């Protein structure tokens, strides 16, 4: 590989710009997905039968179909239904990844809520809190702490899965790499660089997860 260093120095700024898009898509999706997913997870354990079934259906559909299909459906199929549903690639990508991660996070939230000892709800109810207050002040705060480590892992998965957005012409890390290859034909160098950047991103994320895990375990 002659001149790998020089080559890298020339093209690294473009790749880092792509990496920024990757980070943006992943970060926005994980934040929105966490909120949506927690709500769906709470709906899933709700005593309201219809709500619980709707949430279960959502999780079943999203987890049972490929993310790539969901991405295409939003970016290519929706506009044919109604032109108003035409989104720029970044928005389509964020919607698809948010909806997808929400389904996985909903299951994380459900597991976390159900893992809280039944005595906590009983103690809360016996003090006179209603069901909603009990969820809000007692159950969900405890469940949220238990959600953090698996949520971090979901975040790592999302960084990698976000590479699928390269298929809808969003210039993320992978797509930027492919674009450079199309003019330089230096497959090995570019894919190596792209891989290393993904590794760095996911490693940073696992460090953050590790720190959170330590912090959270303090009171338990």
């Amino acid at each position, binding site marked *: 590989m002659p001149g790998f260093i020089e080559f890298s120095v020339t093209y690294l700024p473009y790749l880092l710009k792509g990496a920024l898009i990757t980070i943006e898509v992943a970060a926005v999706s994980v934040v929105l997905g966490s909120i949506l997913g927690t709500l769906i997870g709470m709906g899933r354990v709700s005593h309201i039968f219809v709500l619980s079934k709707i949430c279960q259906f959502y999780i079943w559909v999203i987890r049972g179909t490929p993310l790539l299909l969901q991405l295409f459906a939003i970016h290519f199929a929706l506009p044919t239904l109604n032109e108003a549903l035409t989104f720029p690639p970044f928005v389509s990508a964020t919607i698809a990844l948010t909806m997808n991660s929400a389904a996985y996070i909903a299951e994380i939230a459900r597991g976390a809520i159900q893992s809280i*000892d039944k*005595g*906590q709800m*009983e*103690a*809360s*109810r*016996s*003090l*006179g*809190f*209603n069901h909603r*207050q009990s969820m809000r*002040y*007692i159950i969900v*705060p*405890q469940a949220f*702490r238990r959600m953090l480590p698996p949520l971090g892992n979901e975040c790592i998965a999302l960084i990698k899965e976000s590479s699928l957005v390269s298929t809808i012409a969003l210039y993320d890390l992978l797509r930027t790499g492919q674009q450079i290859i199309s003019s330089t034909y230096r497959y090995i160098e570019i894919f190596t660089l792209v891989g290393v950047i993904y590794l760095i991103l996911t490693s940073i994320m696992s460090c953050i997860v590790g720190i959170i895990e330590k912090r959270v375990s303090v*009171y*338990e």
Partner: protein
Amino acid sequence: MKEEKVSPPILEFKNVYKSYGDNHVLKGIDLKIKKGEVVVLIGSSGSGKTTLLRCINLLVNIDKGEILFNNIPVIQIEENGSKSLLTNNKLNEYRTEIGFVFQHFNLFPHLTVNKNIALALEKIKGMDKKKIKEKVKDLLSWVGLESKYDAYPGQLSGGQKQRVAIVRALAMEPIAMLFDEPTSALDPETVGDVLEVMRKLPDDGMTMVIATHEMEFAREVADRIVFMDKGVIVEQGTPLEILNAPKELRTREFLSRVLTRRRLESS
């Protein structure tokens, strides 16, 4: 029995039944508890003591019968299945008047001791923050735990946790306090601290219903001891009547089992 007919019952069970599948836990319970009375429930595990307590604040819904608080039915289920129950708002209000102390404490692990006690005062009673702080400090020093104000439950011993749990229930100023085997999950050396706190409560006229295996404690604090076996009340009376001169064979058998075990443990 002292002042038997004077005060009306604050809590009343009328022919209460409860079963879990084929397991009939309560089989026709009739029980009246007067204001300020200390009633101790004894009986072996599975006799229905815990379920009886949980029925009172409706953590468990009965299958049949009626439970009244201050002569008002909180739950009423007729033979034909027709049901009347407090509306949700009334139910939550009713629960604030009944303090419940659990065998496993059930403190909120994500909140400090102070927050454990203050949360309901703040969110339910809407009390002023300054007043809450004073009240929490007073109550904690009353049980000798003022230094644990900012501690998390995870940093406390079992006995300390249970004292905080008692204070948390007391802070709501309930009319009655229910104790579900409050010392059964404790190390022997911390049992005394919890019993000491419980001993102080009847002095303020607190109505108490206590399920326990601590016979000496029962003898000391109870106005009335109720012996339960297999979901029925077998016998009830003053501590002297039940512990020294039980009429029923089942009561005698239970007591001799408990006392033998005690002797074995202490030898």
